[in-house]
């Protein structure tokens, strides 16, 4: 029996964001937007969902009078991502 893939991660943009964040210490919203080619609105919504799931931390602050949003993956997020990849590998190796 295969475990279901985590529905929070099994989404194109959320998975892309998590894959980026797992490889770096932290990233600005603009970096994520640039690398995923997503719209700001859609990215904001998906980031909020990841935050609500406890997979990422979002720090909102001001830098030189401009708002700045920094995202970093949490240990829960690392664990969830690890599990997602393992389940994905198990699925693909049998398929």
């Amino acid at each position, binding site marked *: 029996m295969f475990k279901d*893939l985590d529905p929070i991660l*099994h*989404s*194109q*943009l959320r*998975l*892309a964001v998590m*894959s*980026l964040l*797992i*490889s*770096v*210490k*932290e*990233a*600005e919203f*603009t*970096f994520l937007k*640039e*690398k*995923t*080619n*997503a*719209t700001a609105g*859609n990215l904001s919504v998906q980031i909020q969902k990841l935050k609500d799931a406890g997979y990422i931390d979002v720090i909102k602050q001001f*830098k*030189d009078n401009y708002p*700045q949003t920094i995202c970093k993956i949490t240990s829960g997020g690392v664990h969830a991502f690890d599990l997602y*990849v393992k389940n*994905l590998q198990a*699925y*693909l190796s049998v*398929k």
Partner: protein
Amino acid sequence: MEEKKLSEQESLHIIQQMIQTAKQEQKDDGKGWIVWGWALFIVSLLTYLNIRFGWYDVALFWNIFAAIVVLYFFYLLFRFFFIKKSKKVKTYTSDLFDKLNVGFFIFIIFIILSINTGVPPGKGFILLIGLYGFWILIYGTALNFKPSVIAAYITWAIGLAGLFIDRLIHPVKLDNLPGDVVNAISLERFQWVMLFHAFAVLCGYIIPGHIANKEFNNIKKGNILPGV
């Protein structure tokens, strides 16, 4: 970008693509190594020529270089405190390098101070070569950049050979020789130390720096990722 149902293959593709993109952020352009390397190389050669042709005081070019480095250090401090430029992304390696850079420069200051308080300059520069090798090895290992790993060992080999300059150039004891002869022999030995130092920075900084820069530019050229 619209959300759509993902197949497992597509998921895997996204993960690979994004991790690859993030990896490219960690790629160094090598410019720091190139500038630092060429600066050290030129000053070493100028000092060599200065001793050979007796233009000015032996330490002149190193003093000018030190003054420039100190000014640059103050500029960095100013930029850090007053013109804070945040990076769009912080990687673990960039964080490690920022901290190690501080340690590297503190150690350089230790060696420079020791040269000014009794350690013979010839030996001090060999210690610097040893330090360069250590930093180059960390850099090469952290970024999995083989040219730097190889360069670190070459740099150490040059430094090790440099320790025996005294035994290769006029292998005599200086204790009982007249002062002007001692000076002449010491200067000739120091000339060789400068050549070893130049060769070490050529192998340790300049060549790997240019290789890193070439690789970085190639990645930039081919790095047109389609949106996910």
